[in-house]
């Protein structure tokens, strides 16, 4: 089974869905769920064939698409892309199962909701697998459409405004990136045949002047910094996360935002190595601000979904820091962080979504004493929270520590500042835990029901993955390490050697 076929499986599912009568909502959901499970299984089987020794792109496919512009339908994955695709396809069925009823009452009906999710899944696989810059750009922008309708059509509160804000932010970034892409295209034409192939583009930096490189780099970087999101391009995220359904927020924060950090690795670093070096200090400062700023705002958040969004800003700061610290530890840690963040955010949003459906409010102070009324839900929230604060033994610890230790070997000061984030993390998780789970039962919460079987089935694998990878991250690290090491080496860096100075 090729990547292209796997990629189109969700679209096939969406087409099937279109044939199902809208009235049969149950069937619609079952078909959607079945499709995502098939995709997940197919991807896992495919991933077993991945050769972890090889740093090259694998599972490559290339068909000429628009020959006159040198545009190809080219797919292929390295360890980093594979891990992100795996994360996306595993999360998709959980999103559908976890938000079984959240499509009801939306503006466009139940069927459209699932069609949108499936279409989105195709695009997500495409965006991570594309090895042609133009193809990447197409998916990068097209992804906005389903998510726009998911937020605007099925969310709550000021969903339309949030959707538009999200769209405008993303389009702005996309536009800058388009300008840079055209620039690259022209330069590639001036130096041989026009091409969008990223391996060929990554050789162009030798002929670009540093000014050109810097300008083009910024076009890409700002687009990705908005997507990731990095301070100060972040304000769309809390609004979107608050307004979207829990499932939408998982897709948005867990998967889509990773395109930003993935793009930094795949495009910013490999096409513009010199500009990356030039801007590294600025980016590291932005990442540090994101870490601390996101954490402080999470502490100050009154709405539980906004809180999670702010914690994500902090976590994306860590990821960006890891990417630009340019050591094998930080680079591997950053990719592992992306994977783990997907699951820990998914766990948080799943539980929070159920809490909100039961209580009819997302304000933290409306909850209270849940641990006694709904112990399983409370435990799920607690474990998800611990994963958010990177407790050792849970998966996020491994990645966070790798980022920190890797960063320290090159930029000690940055690592030290970032480490303060772990104290703030304890605060921003334990404050909502205390308010929502502990204390007296506040009025309105007495009759909340605990998780039902469907919800338990949804959360169990997420928590299992979080704990398993906390103790045994090797399977993922084996996939990531060669690719991460290759990128560090490609940038002309090598790990700092221990600075033992031989005697006192």
């Amino acid at each position, binding site marked *: 089974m090729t990547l292209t076929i796997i990629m189109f499986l969700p679209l096939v599912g969406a087409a099937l869905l279109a044939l199902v009568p809208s009235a049969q909502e149950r069937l619609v959901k079952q078909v959607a769920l079945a499709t995502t499970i098939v995709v997940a299984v197919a991807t896992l089987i495919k991933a077993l064939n991945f050769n972890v020794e090889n740093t090259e792109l694998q599972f490559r496919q290339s068909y000429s698409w628009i020959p006159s512009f040198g545009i190809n339908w080219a797919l292929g994955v390295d360890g980093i892309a594979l891990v992100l695709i795996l994360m996306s396809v595993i999360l998709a069925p959980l999103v559908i199962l976890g938000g079984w009823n959240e499509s009801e009452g939306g503006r466009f009906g139940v069927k459209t909701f699932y069609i949108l999710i499936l279409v989105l899944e195709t695009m997500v696989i495409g965006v991570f697998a594309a090895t042609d810059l133009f193809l990447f750009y197409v998916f990068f922008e097209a992804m906005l459409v389903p998510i726009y309708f998911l937020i605007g059509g099925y969310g709550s509160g000021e969903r339309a405004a949030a959707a538009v*804000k999200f769209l*405008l932010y993303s389009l702005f970034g996309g536009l800058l990136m388009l300008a840079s892409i055209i620039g690259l295209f022209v330069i590639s034409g001036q130096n041989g045949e026009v091409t969008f192939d990223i391996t060929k583009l990554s050789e162009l930096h030798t002929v670009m002047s540093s000014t050109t490189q810097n300008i083009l780099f910024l076009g890409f970087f700002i687009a990705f910094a908005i997507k990731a999101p990095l301070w*100060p391009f*972040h*304000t*769309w995220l809390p609004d979107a996360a608050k307004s979207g359904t829990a499932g939408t927020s998982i897709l948005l924060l867990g998967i889509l935002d990773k395109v930003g950090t993935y793009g930094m690795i795949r495009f910013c670093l490999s096409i513009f190595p010199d500009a990356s070096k030039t801007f590294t200090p600025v980016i590291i400062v932005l990442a540090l601000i994101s870490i601390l*700023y996101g954490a*402080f*705002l999470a502490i*100050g*958040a009154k709405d539980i979904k906004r809180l999670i969004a702010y914690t994500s800003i902090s976590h994306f700061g860590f990821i960006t820091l890891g990417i630009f610290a340019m050591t*094998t*530890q930080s680079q591997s*840690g950053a990719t592992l962080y992306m994977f783990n963040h997907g699951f820990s955010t998914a766990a948080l949003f799943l539980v929070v979504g159920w809490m909100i459906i039961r209580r009819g409010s997302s304000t933290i102070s409306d909850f209270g*004493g849940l*641990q*006694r009324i709904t112990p399983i839900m409370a*435990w799920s929230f607690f474990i998800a929270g611990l994963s958010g604060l990177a*407790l*050792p*033994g849970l998966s996020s*610890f491994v990645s966070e*520590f*790798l980022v*920190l*230790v*890797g960063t*320290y*070997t090159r930029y*000690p000061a940055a*690592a*030290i500042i970032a*480490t*303060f984030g*772990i*104290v703030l993390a*304890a*605060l921003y998780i*334990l404050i909502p*835990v*205390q308010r929502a*789970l*502990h*204390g*007296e039962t506040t009025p309105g919460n007495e009759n909340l029901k605990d998780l039902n079987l469907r919800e338990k089935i949804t959360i169990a694998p997420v928590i299992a993955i979080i704990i398993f990878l906390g*103790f*045994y*991250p*090797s399977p993922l*690290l084996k996939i990531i*390490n060669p690719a991460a*090491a290759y990128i560090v080496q490609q940038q002309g860096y090598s*790990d*700092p050697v*221990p*600075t*033992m*100075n031989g*005697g*006192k």
Partner: protein
Amino acid sequence: MVTASSLVYLIGLPLFGAAFLLLIGRKADKWGHIFATAMSAGSFILGLLHFFEMSSRATEDRAITQTLFTWIEVGSFKVDAALLLDQLSICFVLLISGVGTLIHIYSISYMAHDENRRRFFAYLNLFIAAMLLLVLGNSYLNLYVGWEGVGLASYLLIGFWNKKPAYATASKKAFVMNRIGDMGLSFAIMIAFATMGTVLFEGVKESVDRVGTPTLTAIGIMLLIAATGKSAQFPLQAWLGDAMAGPTPVSALIHAATMVTAGVYLIVRSNFIFDAAPTAQLLVVIVGAITLIFGAIIGMAKDDIKKALAASTMSQIGYMIVGAGLGPAGYAFAIMHLLTHGFFKAGMFLGAGSVMHGMNDEVNMRKYGGLRKVMPITFVTFGLGYLAIIGVPPFAGFYSKDEIIATAFNSGGAQGIILGSVTLLGAVITAFYMTRVMVLTFTSKARWDEGVHPHESPVLMWLPMAILAIGSVTAGYLFTQGDALVSWLAPLFAKKEEYDELMPHSVVTVLAITAVIIGVTAALMKYQFKSVDAIAPSDVSLATRLARNDLGQDLFNEAIFMRPGQALTQGLVIVDEKVIDGAVHGIGSMAVGSGATLRRTQSGYVRSYAALILVGALVLLAAIWVVTQ
């Protein structure tokens, strides 16, 4: 008998117990406590087997390692999930699982009426597992997992009755303050990796010679910060008093005998770093000495029996830290005091629990009095612990504390004299506040509230107390018999430097006993021979008021960290909303505004459009004309 491959079960048994009891849910309510106790006991028995096995081997082959699997490997950063059992960790394994099992037994009865007893036992098992991991890890990173694991267990157990907001807050406070310490540990690991390329104890030890002193000092200071967080030492001591919100067995196990001593373990384990970093070592001693006095002063003023004991714990750990800071001469004594303290302080906490059990959960000692007659077993066991802690020969505390004081005096120079005096002063205050506790609770006149009918606790509760009391009586003697503990641990540490005994041991012993007599007499004068009010007097000196408020530690933290932090958070929330999001919205409104202005030109009158076209055409023509001229 037992091999290295069974090390994992030391942790595995209680870990399985915790996971199993939490997952199975209410079905296990009837037998969950027995199950958990069995898991802990199993761990203890396995630990004993390992101990006998180890003592039968030659000194140099005593340390064994079990490597389970590769945990994290990226580039040159490689950490295995591996366990190391050596002379130091076996002491801790036995203390943790032994005292832990006793406290499990005690809790069966103590928590009998709590509907969540199963959950309590699951947490206890979780704690045992995490604590064992802490002392068994063979690298700083493995230790870190246990380090935060015990923090989590402590959080869960302090907040076990989190329905009360104050208790929930106490648990959060403990976790957050611990995290500040953990940050120190993170830094230490990062520095170690960056400079030595390894985080294994073994690897770091070998690299010490090749690393500059400034680096080692930095690592040492970071480790010290970690230790102050976990062990409630100055300046991160404020959480321990509040942690008494947890059920009393928890206070006995976690906040007296084991977890809070993890800092001492860390410093002793890292002895090779501190030996090479005198500045860090000096700081260790200073922190220990400050806390020693700090805790003791607070202990004098507390009326809450558990908080008085908590302050005492803080102070006693101060002794251990001082011992650990004195280098090769003091490490073994720090560990010795740690072990004896584990016995007598756990015993006393259990005694306090027993008293509370009989007094309807009253914790105010001013409402006690005269319990000697109604609770004889508790009185005797508590009393033995009391004699041990104040250092009356031949009880356990006498041996261990005496050694620390002697080592302090003999560390030489002004430092030796100051330290010796501080530790002696600590001994006086210890004798004072512990006598106060003893008198207020057991021997003074009864000041019970109406409707309180104190009674002796059931056998499941007094049996562990009795066993711990036996330990409090004999442990010190056993450890010092033929320098048993010192020579047992000696292979781990650098050789003691030979030094002249500035202060002969016998003189120190006399001084220490004098200190005890002074303290005890003062307390007896004040409390035994005068009547005690059931309500704490309010017309007291400033010093007393300060001590009652924990010497202003909370006020300080709130003023310096909490309130500015809250202000910063609120400020940033406003900045985010008004400035950053405001800028975004500003751009939006600018677009809307310019659109509104330009819209006016779209009047809908065809004629004006036509006129515009005309004008436009003329302008264009004019432009062309100008250009072509």
